[in-house]
């Protein structure tokens, strides 16, 4: 065998292995998706949206409490994380630029983005739940908000930097003060990118379970009281799935399906917005 032949054969082997690993990976992942869709679809019915949690064995048992609780928690987290994230990202891109401080903030927030979310839960437990004396929706929302800030911050920073400097200069030349330039020119130019960042940030915190376990805790009943423990889809899913009752497990799969569709939907919409923005 010549050395060329040998190289061609080795090449074939390696490429097949690589393709094989892609197939294995896809197989596992589609297995999970398949289970999610099959189990989720079969557990879905109108009762889920109409009824709140009930003890196992009741037919009139649903996820209304968790769906509403989840929406409240994520909305509150968004109200905390998005403004702070956008403002901080604005500072990095428009004022801090390449200063040492700006780089430090970027690095720290990158680390924060990958930091274990359960630790944030422990932190919020110490600063909110302990002084209040009980679990609350506020604590859950603060935990999610803290997780959201670095995500929004980094995308805003990146997206604002993509706005060409000449646009800013043109606005300055018309005599606009800096905040006006940022608000009316820079933000407008980076609109699509910031929106995508916000959607991805919401998708990310929407799937978080660990930081909610001991902040907003859980509740099997419908509540809108922010000072009380608040049910969420993720924690409900965890409790129901680990329970020995089959009907609760079914509800757990339904919750998993609804949540995944919501998160995948946000991801897809975010990508489409970015894509449409780029084409323009």
């Amino acid at each position, binding site marked *: 065998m010549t050395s060329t032949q040998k190289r061609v054969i080795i090449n074939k082997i*390696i*490429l097949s292995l*690589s393709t*094989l*690993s*892609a197939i294995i*990976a*896809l197989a*596992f*992942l589609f297995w*999970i998706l398949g*289970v*999610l869709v099959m189990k989720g679809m079969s557990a879905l019915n109108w009762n889920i949206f109409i009824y709140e949690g009930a003890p196992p064995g009741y037919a009139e048992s649903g996820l209304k409490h968790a769906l509403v609780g989840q929406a409240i928690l994520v909305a509150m987290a968004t109200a905390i994380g998005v*403004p*702070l994230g956008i*403002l901080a990202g*604005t*500072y990095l891109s*428009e*004022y*801090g630029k390449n200063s040492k*401080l700006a780089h*430090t*903030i970027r*690095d720290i927030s*990158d*680390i*924060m983005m*990958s*930091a*274990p*979310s*359960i*630790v*944030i*839960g*422990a*932190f919020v437990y*110490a600063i909110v739940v302990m002084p209040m004396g009980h679990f609350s929706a506020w604590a859950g929302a603060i935990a999610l908000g803290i997780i959201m*800030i670095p995500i929004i*911050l980094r995308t805003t920073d990146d997206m604002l930097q993509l706005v060409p400097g000449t646009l800013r200069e043109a606005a300055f030349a018309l005599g606009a*003060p800096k*905040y006006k330039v*940022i608000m009316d020119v820079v933000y407008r130019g980076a609109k699509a990118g910031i929106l995508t960042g916000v959607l991805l940030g919401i998708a*990310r915190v929407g*799937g*978080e*379970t*660990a930081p909610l*376990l*001991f902040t907003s*805790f859980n509740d099997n009943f419908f509540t809108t009281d922010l000072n009380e423990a608040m049910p969420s889809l*993720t924690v409900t*899913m*965890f409790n129901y*799935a680990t329970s020995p009752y089959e009907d609760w497990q079914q509800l757990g799969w339904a919750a998993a399906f609804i949540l*995944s569709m919501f*998160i*995948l939907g946000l*991801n897809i919409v975010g990508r489409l917005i970015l894509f449409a923005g780029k084409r323009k």
Partner: protein
Amino acid sequence: MIDKIFFNMTRTSALLILFIVAWIFVVLFNHSTEAINAFGFDFITQDEWAPNLEKFGAYAAIFGSVASTFLAMILAIPVAIGVAIFLSEIAHDKIKGFFGVSVELLAAIPSVIYGMWGLFYFVPIIRDIFGGLGIGLLSAGIVLAIMILPFMAAVTRDAMNTTPDILKESAYALGGTQWDVIKDVIIPYAKAGIIGSLILALGRAIGETMAVTFVMGNVHKVPGSILDPTTSIPVTLANEFTEADTSLYFSSLFGLALTLLIMSFVVIAVAKFYFLRKVRKGQ
């Protein structure tokens, strides 16, 4: 005037991030002082975790975290590199787009769902093959590997894609096969980026709670075999935080949280500042 206010608002928000991170460390440290005073270094070297005896040693949890992450990395790294090679070098453009986006979307699926799937579908398989409970270190490592795979593949592919086409084309022009190009051009060029991405995935895996909580067992013992149930830091926190009844118990849990935060901080910082910074400078 408004200009000043706006500037100060943005600056305060930016500084808030640094403040929050510092605050997290301070709070976790303050709350764990009781455990640190009571146990000292025994806290991380002893494996007896007995709340009823007020004895807390985190070694089993630390061991479980490291072992499950290590197992997950061993399983996931070859597959992730295979997928990354497939995505960046083998697949046609059309498949690449579809496959690439689906990998990224899979990375967005909440980890609690991987955990649920693991408990209901994967644990029984392990039980049938190896006997025992099915719940344990092996299941945790495998579920963790599957969960981390999409993220790992996506970032590794991004690292490989930084190789300039002109370098690859030159190698092909010399008669290199695709594998020659991969091993002699792409991997040397993107080495720092690939290692950095893998370590970043490791950082994610070590702090992962939900994917493993379902399948690990929460038993505070260094496992005798890979099939034994054990625990990890996040699993212990998730299971016991709402059950802690004494201040020493709480303090020990905060000590665990602090240990985990420091571990992941170091891992991520190494990935970001040592390896990925090299990449940025190289470009």
